[in-house]
């Protein structure tokens, strides 16, 4: 399932504004890669460029290469819709579809694409995805209830279940815990540890403890000032980044001296 992503010389624009400059990065399979950095440094923008969600915003575009499994995601003839099917995404705020039940939310990726499946098959997918997202035990007796009736932490795990139900190769998470309480955060962090056995996970987080707890490798993004593009300053094993970074700015950031 899980695949390596190689990003080379990626420039990300909003219209004519260069938001992120020259990122070259290797994202390893079966591991969690954390992206940290001050607000506005472009880490979320970079994350969204990994499944072509960036171009949903009018005027947004990228230059450079993102290669997943030998295939350039931005190559000509590549359908962004197909890219998003193999690179799933979980957002900052839990956003289950309000018109759908828990069951239908998990199946949304299939149902919305009109994929026909037998009832037993669908039941299996729902159970697998909810078990995968550590939510099955809490909701298996009320799958027909609206997804919006769950607590925030449960909704976020429902969104994770929805993302993994389509069996993507990569899972992108954009500050998945910033709207959650510590207990729900812990549940999601445990879940990430479990998911990395099967998926390549990239997580953007503002919480440095979280990055050091869950990730294998960490990339530090920084920005020199307002209006300047964000850059990948340093990327290394998480232990190295947090204990012995090679760049002064990284050390200042992880030790809380700025940012």
């Amino acid at each position, binding site marked *: 399932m899980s695949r390596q992503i190689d990003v080379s010389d990626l420039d990300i624009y909003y219209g004519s504004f260069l938001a992120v400059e020259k990122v070259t990065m290797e994202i390893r399979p079966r591991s969690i890669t954390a992206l940290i950095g001050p607000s506005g440094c472009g880490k979320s923008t970079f994350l969204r460029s990994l*499944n072509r*969600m960036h171009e*949903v915003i*009018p005027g947004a575009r990228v230059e450079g290469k993102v290669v997943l499994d030998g295939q350039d995601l931005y190559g000509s003839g590549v359908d962004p*819709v*197909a*890219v*998003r*099917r*193999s690179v*799933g*995404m979980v*957002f900052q*705020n839990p*956003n289950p*579809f*309000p*018109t759908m039940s828990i069951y239908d939310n998990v199946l*949304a*990726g299939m*149902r*919305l*694409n*009109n994929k026909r499946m037998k009832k037993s098959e669908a039941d299996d997918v729902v159970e697998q995805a909810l078990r995968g997202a550590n939510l099955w035990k809490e909701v298996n007796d009320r799958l027909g*209830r*609206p997804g*919006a*009736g769950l607590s925030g932490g449960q909704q976020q795990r429902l*969104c994770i279940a*929805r*993302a993994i139900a*389509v069996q993507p190769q990569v899972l992108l998470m954009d500050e998945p815990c910033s709207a959650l309480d510590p207990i729900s955060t812990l549940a999601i962090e445990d879940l990430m540890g479990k998911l990395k056995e099967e998926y390549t996970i990239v997580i953007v987080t503002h919480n440095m403890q979280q990055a050091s707890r869950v990730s294998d490798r960490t990339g530090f993004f920084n920005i020199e000032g307002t209006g300047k593009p964000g850059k990948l300053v340093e990327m290394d094993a998480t232990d190295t980044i947090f204990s012995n970074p090679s760049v002064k700015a990284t050390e200042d950031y992880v030790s809380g001296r700025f940012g």
Partner: protein
Amino acid sequence: MAQSTQQGSPAGEPPEPGTSPEKPDFGTLTKFQPASLADSMHDSLPRWAPLAATGLGALVAAALLAVTDLHVALAVIAGTVVAIAAFTIASRAVEGERAATDRFVTSLVTVAFVLAMLPLVSVVWTTVSRGLARFDYAFFTQSQAGIIGEGGGAYHAIMGTLIVTGIATIISVPIGTMTAIYLVEYGGDNKLSRVVTFLVDVMTGIPSIVAGLFSLALFTLLFGPGLRIGIMGSIALSVLMIPIVVRAVEEMLRIVPARLRESSYALGVPKWRTIVKVVLPTAASGIASGVVIAVARVMGETAPLLVTVGLATSTNLNPFEGRMATLPVFAYYQIAFPGIPPQAFIDRAWTSALLLILFVMTLNVGARVLAKALAPKTR
């Protein structure tokens, strides 16, 4: 403790010894302390005070009517002014300046509300009281075919109104909804969508007779002069209805959170499917009530139907051939050109009006029920 005794004490009474408002102990905090908390406490007027003021106003008005030969409206206005003045002065004496201002403005707002309600209540009352005379079985089952004086009903007009507005709805809802989808989901801020938005705004304001004349001109151009058929009325009504539908649907689509669209895209769902399966269902309740209210708006239009559909005395259910009766036009002719005895015609007009009000009311209630049934649930 001291606080509670002060709460009960009337305004202006000095606070009890030992609870002096100067509190030097608070140090720097003193300036943030509402030092005059004790001073600012007042009694409040009893809860029946507004009622009493209203009663006073009514008494003044009644007295004026009894003593002078003032017009009723003037007497009521005088009574209202006296009531508000007395109420405000009493409030200022007991409750203080700020509360008195609040009371005064509340009174003004209440008067404005009553003024706004008056015509509505008056219309409903007049229509119900005069319309009940012919609100009978025959009115719903018989047409005016062969009727010269009394009797007959408006079955033909009821069916005509349902058919003409029904077809107008079938034409307007898809066009209006799709225009709104274009504006919100595809157009963005491009030139075409700005032009469309401008035209929709203009169309919202066009007089209804213009819509009728447009339809008349269109059909005259296509089929020659003198044609009066139901579909012409439907076209005229759609011209009025489309902008209302566009506005309502556009507003509903705009409040669907962008993150729902994004999470659908992130699941690999193409844009058009996201619109059909995520955006429209989420907005469905608002769209449904918007459409129903648009139907209610055009149902009572008279002028465009007068010039396009005309009037018939017998039932015609075919919108593509022959004149048709509709409730508003029927009511107009009954009251404008009464026969003999005139009362029978006037009664029929009022009952038609009552029926139109009932239709519109039912549609509005239906819109609420529909909105509630379609709204996303959390339980």
